[in-house]
């Protein structure tokens, strides 16, 4: 009985404790982009980070991916501290954001191979992995074409393959369907779901409400750097007495006026 419980709820893969990140900006002064954020995420779960523009989603995810160091607070991923053991963390993490572009002068295959090599993979392993990912993401026809000639969808698929080449335990997706057409967006959502089935830990940030409803096991609403509420979809529906995700979001952040105020800041 105890063993079954352990299998169903394994140890958290991501543990963020009181993460705070401030930036010093010449014009705006000190900006608190992430303010005392704590959450955990377990393998086989998709954690959805929902927030408006400038809410602090990307900054939070960059802290997890060790690209930035928290001003205060700590984060442990797969048992490694993101500041003290950043290389071990990155070896376990695949990070995809709008700001992680492809090398335009490389082909998709070269791009994926490069990141496989940087992850210490051998030629055979990379070759096999590219074959597998290209099949799953349906990218065989453009695998040997240069990335600068790609459509947004081809680019995003190549980026996902780049992110996952080393088969990381943790996947961090920052608005992965941004700017994609319905079919490509659906393909990517489907792919993320398949990752969950394989027991991966997924963090997924977005401001698209429908994706959150369809995809995420736990939803965290971030506003003005703070994690204002967190829970499963049924829990949130109950808490805010609203069936619709958009209404829940607006209520959680304190009404439309609060969103407008945050945007103007």
């Amino acid at each position, binding site marked *: 009985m105890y063993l079954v419980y352990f299998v169903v709820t394994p140890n958290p893969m991501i543990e963020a404790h009181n993460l705070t990140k401030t930036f010093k900006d010449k014009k705006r002064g000190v900006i608190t982009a992430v303010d005392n954020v704590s959450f955990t995420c377990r393998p086989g779960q998709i954690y959805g980070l929902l927030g408006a523009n400038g809410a602090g989603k990307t900054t939070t995810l960059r802290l997890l991916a060790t690209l930035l160091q928290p001003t205060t607070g700590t984060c442990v991923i797969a048992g490694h501290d993101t500041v003290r053991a950043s290389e071990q963390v*990155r070896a376990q993490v695949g990070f995809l954001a709008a*700001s992680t572009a492809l090398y335009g002068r490389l082909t998709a295959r070269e791009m994926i191979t490069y990141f496989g090599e*940087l992850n210490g993979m051998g030629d055979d392993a990379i070759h096999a992995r590219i074959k597998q990912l290209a099949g799953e993401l349906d990218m065989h026809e453009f695998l040997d074409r240069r990335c600068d000639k790609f459509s947004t969808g081809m680019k995003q698929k190549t980026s996902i393959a780049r992110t996952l080449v080393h088969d990381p335990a943790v996947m961090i997706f920052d608005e992965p369907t941004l700017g994609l057409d319905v079919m490509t967006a659906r393909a990517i959502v489907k792919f993320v779901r398949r990752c969950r089935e394989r027991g991966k830990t997924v963090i997924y940030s977005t401001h698209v409400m429908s994706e959150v409803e369809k995809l995420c096991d736990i939803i965290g609403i971030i506003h003005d750097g703070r994690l204002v509420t967190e829970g499963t979809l049924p829990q949130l529906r109950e808490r805010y007495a609203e069936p619709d995700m958009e209404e829940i979001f607006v209520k959680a952040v304190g009404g439309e006026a609060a969103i407008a105020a945050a945007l103007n800041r």
Partner: protein
Amino acid sequence: MNWQAILIVYLKELKDQLRDRRTIISTIVLPTVIMPVMMFGFGVVMTKIIKKAQDEGTNVMIVGSAGAPELIKALKADPKFRVVAETGDYQQRIADKKLRVALELPADFEAQVRVGQPATAAVLYYEGEIKSGIGARELEGFMQKYRTALVEGRLKERGLPLELTKPFELKRRNVAPPEKVGGATIGGFIPYIIIILCFSGAMYPAMDLTAGEKERGTMETLMCSPTSRINIVFGKFLTVLTASVATMVFAMISMAGTALIGGSLFAGKAAAMQSAAAKSASAGFMPTIDPAGMLGVFALVAPVAVFFAALLLTVSLFAKSYKEAQSYAGPLIIVVIIPAVFGLLPGIELSAKTALIPILNLSLVCKEMLSGTWNWPFIGLIFGSSCLYAAIGLAVCVKMFNREDVMFRA
């Protein structure tokens, strides 16, 4: 630091750069083409100008010609001069470059000379105007010879020996061996060119691999990989260094080729022209250079190339965009050229102090090495200090890569 990871980054960056037309142009095409164009162009233009000046001869106007028929006759007999008709506006005509020189004489010049009255002849020219200056020197030379001839005529008339005007002979003889002449004339010029090539060859890749990547968003992708930043820095640094050295090597090969082909070409032409001026001109393009000196130059340039690569990477990493990086690196080339130019100035010599000034020290010691002088203590000091500057540059560059306010500048 992990050499395998550095190699992975280096090979990828090299492949990436080789696919970039701008890099190919700045590291291969430009340095290969610019040398022959510069040398041939310079040579052809110089030969033409000298030949033209000789063919034309110096046009000279005698003011007060009525009083000096003998002088005019002698002047007309000299092929170097073309005597033009006397007009009143000669000063204006010199200023307008229609006339190179004028000789101003008193109205009764020859009569005065005959009776032994001291007369004054003035050579009028335009200071700063090359052709006018050459004409003035030729005319002065002619007048001095003419005066000596008059003196000798008078001595002869009175039965006195000619030695009276010349108590002794004065001669001039060159003792410098040809490679010394070569080292001194173009020895300062070669390191200057190498320094500029080294810098300009590193400039484009350094900007593309840092600011360019930040602008295109690939820098963040690269930082997501588990490789530590120092490996990324070294991979990029080696790529920039390769481009810098390649630029230099392509330019040198092209320069040597041009000198080989052009040298024989100009030598042939000079012989055909049979003129001293053309000979000295062609000797200027083809001076002998000590090959060991050339190797020494490359050895001393190496740490400077490292320094340039690190400096350019650091500066352009700071920029947010390619454009911004250009606005930093562009003015930097002037900062680099100034000490190199100082090295060309006469009077600035190698000393314990100048040996520590980066770039200037290289410029100075190269001049010496190319002319066969090996000042080992200074060479050691310069190599050592250059290596130190290079190491500092690299350390600052690695520091920059680890600063998140630089990597994620909003």
